[in-house]
């Protein structure tokens, strides 16, 4: 088990390899379909994303009516491949160092991970409660006009569990499993 602690650095990222289980402590920003589309269309991000982690997640957030604070009720990852057309650009233009999501991403993203020192971290899909428990606070919300699940939520997490499935050295667990499963299927049909 490795640990990734804020502030994140490129050195920490380069040290991560496919198959590592990692506990993240620090800051992350949610960003999914609408955020990536808007960034791609040229709008500058409302926060500095340099050496930050983007989490592909549309959380359930409820505002506490007594203290006005946001509470995250559920926060698992969403499928990342939808951001494949945009993710490499966000890595190149805004210097993010990590992406958390599920299902893995494609060749463009894998190459950008190598080129710009970034890593793809796989959270367990559907594990919305285990992951929400790791969120210590909601520190901000941006682009709320995109709707609650699509907004950028600034989160502080502690011991957030992920598995490295695409590293900054050109390795992808997803490519490997896809190839081997296809080969295996030929034995049965």
């Amino acid at each position: 088990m490795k640990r990734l602690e804020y502030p994140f650095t490129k050195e920490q990222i380069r040290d991560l390899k496919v198959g590592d289980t990692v506990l993240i402590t620090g800051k992350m920003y949610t960003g999914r379909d609408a955020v990536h589309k808007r960034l791609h269309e040229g709008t500058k991000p409302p926060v500095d994303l340099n050496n930050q982690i983007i989490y592909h997640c549309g959380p359930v957030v409820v505002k506490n009516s007594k203290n006005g604070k946001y509470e995250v009720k559920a926060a698992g990852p969403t499928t990342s491949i939808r951001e494949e057309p945009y993710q490499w650009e966000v890595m190149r233009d805004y210097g993010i160092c990590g992406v958390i999501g599920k299902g893995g991403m494609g060749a463009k993203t894998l190459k950008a991970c190598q080129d710009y020192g970034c890593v793809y971290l796989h959270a367990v899909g559907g594990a919305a409660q285990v992951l929400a428990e790791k969120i210590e606070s909601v520190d901000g919300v941006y682009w709320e006009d995109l709707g609650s699940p699509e907004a950028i939520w600034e989160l502080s997490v502690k011991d957030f569990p992920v598995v490295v499935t695409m590293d900054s050295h050109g390795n992808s667990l997803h490519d490997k499993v896809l190839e081997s499963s296809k080969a295996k299927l030929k034995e049965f049909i």
Partner: protein
Amino acid sequence: MAANKKTTKKKVIAKKKATTKKKVTIKKKPSLYDSLLELVRVTSTVLPDDVARVLLNARKAETEGSSASYALGIIADNIELAKIKSSPICQDTGTLLFFVNHPVGFKQSEFIETAKKAVVKATQVGYLRQNSVDSLTGANTGMNVGPGHPSFHFHEHKSDKVEIRLVLKGGGSENVSTQYSLPNVELGAGRDLEGVKKVILDGVIKAQGKGCGPGILGVCIGGDRGAGYINSKEQLLRKLDDKNPSADLNKLENEIVEISNKLGIGPMGFGGATTLIGCKIGVLNRLPASFFVSISYMCWASRRQGVVLTKSGDIKNWLY
């Protein structure tokens, strides 16, 4: 399970009573609205027993210390935590699919109106995510109500029972659901059960990683494109340990699970022994010209619950 639901409900009621103690308490009769709100809460937060059992057992098949075993461990913790906290198992609380079996004379429009109110409330308190988006403007309705949301499927039957089943089907699993038209030259799949098997297994390969496996397949052979998809979703209402009355389909269901679990895809596509925890196949007639195989992929968080109502609209018993 039944006992657990009861205690959770009692706790909720007890809590409510405690906070409203000073007010004049008039004992309110449980209504259809309350029952539907409770059905939504339980569906979103408590995984059906038959599914939870299979998932908890699945870990034994995985290598200790592997990513697959790690993922199943987190899934087990998540199932427990969601139940205790009465919070959504998954943040994508999905499309709400209501399947209602009802007697003659049942008022569907009144039911729809009440169900929508319950869904709005469930969204406000966080049992459901704000999950309904206007496809043209991109605006989130904020309340899970709008054209097509929730999705209602009514079936009139001869019994005097009102049975309501609810499935929450997330977007990740719906996106990898798929439909094949046979023959399929590329896959060498003809218009027979062997061809059906080939396309289903192709669907399993393509869904890997993306649909939050280990998954459950609901499949329909035949029908037109629309009816095929609906029937494939209805298969997801079946318990994992039931047996298909058709010997051919029962055999095919078992075969699909067996082969899929030998492909090494595993939970989350991390590699491993558990790719599917179930496959349920239904069949509809088709036109001579058409042969569709419709596959609804369901994630491990297979959220389905159901209730039988009393005449006054209270919950008589739970179906899963």
